[in-house]
Each structure stands twice: as C-alpha cells, then as structure tokens.
C-alpha cells in the first residue's frame, strides 16, 4: 500500500494504492492532516481511487473525516477513478452525496474551479 501526495495550487493530489481499511486509514489520515498543516492555503483534495482495490466502513470514515477537515477551510474533496466495487460502497453509504465522484483529474479540477 502507498500514499503519494502532490500539491497543485490550493489543491492536494493524493494517489492511493492498496486496500483502504483501518490499517491504511491511519497513515492516510495523518499524511493528509500533516500536508494541510504544512501548506497554508491548501484547501481542496483530489483523491485518486483507481489503485484502491478494497474499501470498508473504516476507509469510508477516513475519507469522510478529511471531507469534514477541509470543509472547515472552505475546501472540497473529489474522488477520481473509483472501481465499480468501491463505487458501490461509496453509494450505499451515501458518501457520494457529499463527495462527488469524477472520471478524470481534469473533471475533478474543473469542478473544483467552479467553486471559486
């Protein structure tokens, strides 16, 4: 499993690989939290989900927790490239109602841009 973070303007790009369960949720939360602290002005997060092969309620809670974290800064989250299996849980849990799913990075950046 791996978490790679890049910064583009006010947006953090997170690339996840592996199974987002309670084990991966811990570094996921702390890495994003740290990056937000280290980079004032960052407020949006685009998370690439195409490398995520599994998610459960602890992984969903970790994503929702980051949503709440950036919401307080006026930021938003977009999820990109979730597999059918992951999409099913995002939908069943209602997380997709709060955090839009996008097909590409361009779509995600474009939809965040509209917020300004």
């Amino acid at each position: 499993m791996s978490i790679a973070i890049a910064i583009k303007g006010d947006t953090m790009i997170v690339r996840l690989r592996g199974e987002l369960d309670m084990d991966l949720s811990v570094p996921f939360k702390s890495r994003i939290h740290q990056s937000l602290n280290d980079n004032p002005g960052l407020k949006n997060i685009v998370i690439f989900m195409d490398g995520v092969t599994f998610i459960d309620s602890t992984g969903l809670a970790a994503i929702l927790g980051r949503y709440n974290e950036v919401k307080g800064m006026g930021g938003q989250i977009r999820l990109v490239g979730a597999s059918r299996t992951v999409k099913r849980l995002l939908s069943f849990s209602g997380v997709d109602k709060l955090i839009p799913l996008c097909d590409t990075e361009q779509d995600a950046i474009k939809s965040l841009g509209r917020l300004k």
Partner: protein
Amino acid sequence: MRKGADTMLRPQSTQTDYVKLEFPSLPKNVGFARSAAAIYASRLDFTLDEIDEIKVAASEAVSNAVIHGYRDTVGTITMEMIVANGDLWIHVTDSGRGIEDVEWARQATHTSLPDVHMGLGFVFMDEYMDELVIESYPGEGTLLKMKKGAGMPKSEE
C-alpha cells in the same frame, strides 16, 4: 469469562468442513482475515461480486472486534469459516468489552466512534450477507455469525 458463556460464545466447529484462524487484534491482521475469508469462500459457487461482499463483511466483523471489542488493548480474535449445507458461515469471536445494546448498535449511524467507521459496520454485514446473528455479553465478548448461501438462482421473476 462467565461460566457457561464460553460455551455459548464458542463457534460451532463440529462441521467437518471448516477452517479456524486465531490472531491478535492488530489492524494489520484485518486484511489477512478478509483475504482468508475470500479464499475459503471461493470453494463454493460464489460470483466475484459475492466474494467482494464476503470480504467487506469479514473486514467489518474483524474491524469491529479490533475497534470496539478490544479498543485500546490487544486481545485474541478467532475467525472460523464453515461450509454447512452448501452455505458459508463466518464466525468472528472476541473476548473484549461486548456490546451493551445490540439492537441499538445494529442501526445505521449508531456508533460510539463516528470518525473511525461511520457506524456502518453492522449495516454492511446485514446488507452483504444473508443472515447476521450477534451474541454479545458486556464485559465478556462478542460472537458474530454470518451466513451467505452460494449458487442461489438469481431469479428475476
């Protein structure tokens, strides 16, 4: 553990076709447990989607034991996988704190730790398995029994 409760909590392993795993309640073991459940389930005629559902349910059951059963301590989790009458059963047992009010805990969004798992663990287990039985004794432990039938005809009639 209370005398008698041990008998009630112990998974029924008299069936001939079963696998029993025992491991400490460490987060890194959750992935191993659900993968083991998926591999065991593949001996039955499940679709790939159903195997994914079993993985989610097993992950939730084991996570529940780690997060709620033992919380800030480490204890032993037992996961037993059984094939009985063509059905898959997964039993997950812990000897942790137990659940005070099982009916309350089963409902969506009821959780004592919202930032950790949204309170959806039992909802996913209910949704993805055909049957979910929760036996819990506060201060003694919890046994989750889940059943999923394989090769069920997907009738659209």
